């Protein structure tokens, strides 16, 4: 009974939503004076950032990114708070599967390469697709690989929160440094450099590298917390 009710409600909702969406001409933008034209021209012209998405994520809407990093930070904190069992009861590592020697050796070989790829992705965030989030996630998957293949692989909690806190503080401080020269929060205060150079875009690469470290540390911590929750 409940299923039928929900299904019919959903059908009404879907038809109404689709009817409205069909008024959008797919592939043509309806609006004339949106903000995107400004972003598309200013980013390469004035800021020296080739990847416009990066320019938006880190600079134009950099405040969102600060919030987003905070969301991940909170998710890690929330998860460890929710799963916390008390001072004296520490969880035991869950073992998803026991891995063979081949897997172990292979992961050991792959691990540095994955970390390197992650670092490459977030250092080149302003030039190529990718950036702090993507690079951070790739680094976290590297640690995930190690955690899965070695049953006794340990990540230092102190080191993780150290990296996480320092990266977060770097982000917020770079933001506050924008107040130099009478600017505003998160404003660029470094020379922008030429388009498609590695050293370009002012503070954008600095912020994205901080984001990369922070996201990497947070997600590694999150997975580590989850894995350590065996009953």
């Amino acid at each position, binding site marked *: 009974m409940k299923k039928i009710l929900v299904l019919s409600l959903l059908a009404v909702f879907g038809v109404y939503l689709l009817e409205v969406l069909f*008024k959008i001409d797919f592939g043509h933008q309806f609006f004339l004076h949106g*903000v995107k034209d400004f972003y598309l021209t200013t980013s390469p012209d004035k800021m020296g950032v080739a990847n416009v998405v990066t320019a938006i994520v880190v600079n134009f809407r950099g405040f969102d990114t600060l919030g987003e990093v905070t969301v991940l930070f909170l998710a890690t904190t929330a998860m460890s*708070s929710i799963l916390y069992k008390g001072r004296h009861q520490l969880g035991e590592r869950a073992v998803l599967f026991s891995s063979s020697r081949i897997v172990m050796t292979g992961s050991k070989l792959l691990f540095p390469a994955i970390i390197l790829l992650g670092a490459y992705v977030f250092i080149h965030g302003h030039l190529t697709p990718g950036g702090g989030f993507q690079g951070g996630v790739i680094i976290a998957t590297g640690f995930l690989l190690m955690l899965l293949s070695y049953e006794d692989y340990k990540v230092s909690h102190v080191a993780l929160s150290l990296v996480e806190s320092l990266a977060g503080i770097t982000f917020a401080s770079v933001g506050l440094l924008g107040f130099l020269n009478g600017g505003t929060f998160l404003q660029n205060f470094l020379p922008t450099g030429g388009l498609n150079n590695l050293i370009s875009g002012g503070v954008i690469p600095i912020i994205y590298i901080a984001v990369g470290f922070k996201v990497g540390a947070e997600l590694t911590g999150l997975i580590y917390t989850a894995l350590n929750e065996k009953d």
Partner: protein
Amino acid sequence: MVGTPVLFIAIPLLAAFLIPLLGFVWKESVRILPGLVLLYLLYLAVNLMGQVAHSGTIVEVIAGWAPPWGINLVFSPLTGLLTTLMILMGFIIWIYSYRFKNIDFREAVKYFILLLMMITGSVGIVLTGDIFNQFVFIEITSISAYALTAFYKGRDSAEASFKYLIIGSLSSMFLLLAIVLIYSQLGTLNMADIADKAHLMKPGFKILALIFFITGLGIEAEIFPLNGWTPDAYAQAPGPVGAAFSGIVVKAGVYAMIRVIFTLFDVSGTHQFLIIIGMITLIIAEMAAVKQDRLKRMLAYSSIGQMGLVIVAFGIGTEEGVFAALFLMLNHAIIKSLLFLSGSYLVYNSTEKYIHETDGLAKHLPITSFLFALGAIAIVGMPPFAGFWSKWSILSAAAHSNMILVIVLILSVSIIELVYYFRVVNRIYFFPKQKEVEPKRPTINALIAMSILGILILVIGFYPDSVTGYLHSASQSLLEKGKYIQDVLSTGQLFIQ
């Protein structure tokens, strides 16, 4: 110049990132730092309020891009008032919970981070001038709220939190859908810019986006069909967190909804809709509150009812109505926090938190009982206290708009309210104490926090003029839509290096 509005977000974030590090060095600093941050922000907020009263709304540009290109923060009389209120409540709740989780240091770290972030998220919801940024702050607030609801490791707290999380994430999906619809039509995310261009939207989009917004924001504002999570979450969360929900988070939710309805979309009929939905919320919640036999659930339903009343007052839509609604929000934040804080000491050692377990506690906990009674008298609207003035101004606003039915309903609901609050006060003062109940004496910092709230109730009750000036300018700033748009869109040239 003491600082800019962005510090309300940046400083707590910096502190939250710093707290885990400081914990390695000096454990006590974990407890002290949030208080210092909130105290500084309170100083900043009061200063900025003075500045706003002098020279008008402050619009802060972020990353050097003027609106609508960059994100901006708006510190107007309205948002400034709410920010000051939230920071003040946050500071008092910090005093109250200073010794929280005294034994277990690792839990204390998490508690203070989450509490600080919940306050910051709510302040961000109020200050920001960008709908997607608001969405991000709503997520910050709700994730902290989920974790804080599940903070005690008892059986039911995880259930309450999971319920809250499911409703919360469905709502945030609706919010995201509304943002998609608006962006697809206008190509902008800035609130003032949307308000300026809203007439360009095709009608279907406008209505659907409004519906999605109300559904998405209604959960934090606790309006009728979306408040199923509220009683569970309030009852299961630690006492100070319940106070923070009713004093801070709900206020942010109501603000976001009101901003959408008053500024973003002027669809005719929305005000009537607000009155109807508010009345339904009010009546259902108060009816439910009478039936409760647990103290915190009763307070939670009462909180929902008061929010319904706030929505009704906003729905009246005149300057007087908005003034009354803001006045009620202010009073409700202070009084309901006092009720939650003192109430959680009344049922401190009980697992089920039944009302009858508070019998005769007045002799054992005189100050706590007195403060609870003060809060109860104030919230039902007895003449010399704070709640009276706000209820009076709602009634007079309704009378001036010839809404007789609203007046009758509010008065009859007030009688219900009177009944269930006096039932509790009566039990506290005149019933014999139950033997198995062991009263817990409040710690000194809890007493200080509750006394501050009690004094605030008395001050607002006897000198309502001390706040009405701010409330009047706040309500004017909400109603002057054109001025908001102009203030935001005319700010600042582009800073480009």
